[in-house]
């Protein structure tokens, strides 16, 4: 097989996988909704009978919990699917703007440097990690890129947030790591990179020539 044929086949497989991801995220939610809403209707119509029966209370509680877990995991697949399919426009922004408000340490001067990336996407990732607390970001220049490193205590495995989510959807769905994984998909489509190891993440952004 030639390299061109192999590449074309890989592209086709990617499109198929994207379609499958979309189908899974959308189509599985439909029967889940049916089960969730039917259980709620049943519980409502049985009224006091459920309250009087310990077994019924446990059964309805378990159904509700299971449905919530499934909903959470499907939501993660939906977000990843949308990130894969989202139409992206070329974007860029000053590093100072992207990192404004965070505690940044760097050995080099960042002023005047422009990152070729959607700044809102990076902010969303950093904001998700920071939450209400201060976030310390270490910026390191590496030729035509800048690496932004910060702590993510929830991340327990590498080599990236997306790998972590793929490794354990149940553990990471609905968490900060999910936001980082979705951001990873979007940034990598724009020439960025995201890597991670237990406790920390590095976002690598392409820079305009100085």
């Amino acid at each position, binding site marked *: 097989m030639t390299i061109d044929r192999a590449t074309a086949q890989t592209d086709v497989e990617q499109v198929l996988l994207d379609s499958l991801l979309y189908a899974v*995220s*959308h*189509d599985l*939610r*439909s029967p*889940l*909704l*049916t089960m*969730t*809403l*039917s259980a*709620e*209707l049943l519980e*409502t119509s049985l009224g006091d009978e459920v309250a009087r029966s310990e077994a019924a209370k446990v059964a309805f509680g378990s159904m509700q919990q299971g*449905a919530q877990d499934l*909903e959470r995991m499907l939501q993660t697949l*939906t977000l990843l699917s*949308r990130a894969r399919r*989202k*139409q992206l426009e070329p974007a860029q922004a000053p590093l100072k703007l992207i990192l404004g408000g965070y505690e940044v340490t760097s050995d080099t001067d960042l002023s005047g440097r422009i990152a070729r990336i959607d700044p809102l996407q990076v902010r969303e990732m950093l904001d998700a990690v920071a939450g209400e607390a201060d976030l310390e970001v270490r910026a390191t220049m590496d030729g035509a890129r800048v690496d932004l490193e910060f702590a993510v205590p929830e991340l327990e495995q590498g080599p990236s947030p997306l790998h972590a989510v793929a490794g354990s959807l149940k553990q990471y769905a609905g968490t900060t790591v999910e936001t980082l994984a979705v951001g990873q998909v979007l940034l990598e489509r724009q020439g960025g990179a995201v890597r991670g190891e237990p406790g920390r993440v590095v976002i690598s952004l392409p820079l305009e020539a100085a």
Partner: protein
Amino acid sequence: MTSTRPILVVDDDIDHAVILRTVLASVAPEAPVEMCTDPSRLPGVLLEAPEGAVVLIDRLLRGVESFPHLKVARDERPDLYVVLLSSALSPEDRARALQSGARDAAEKPGSLSLWRSMLGKMLTDADERDAQRGDARAG
């Protein structure tokens, strides 16, 4: 006061259609509700919908997107208040639905209370739109 506006539910998932009708019975008990679970009856069932009806139409009908039906309703039956519903709806999908002629578009909620508040709001919005149109005609 609850709405008495006629409602048409178009969904090929019979379970969803029945659940929707059950919720509507508590939100708008006096509103007549028609159901269409057979997409092959479209667009006829839309064109023959009662005057001023709220139409709740699923985004995917037997695997086929229903956006073309939104355009038909917009062009042929502007009196209808068409809302697109979907098990999963992205912001881009919503924008496309509104561009195609839907008055609103929403993801199907995962709890009955959210269904009730969403449907109640949609019916109120439809009533307010009609009141504004009436005012505009009178003015």
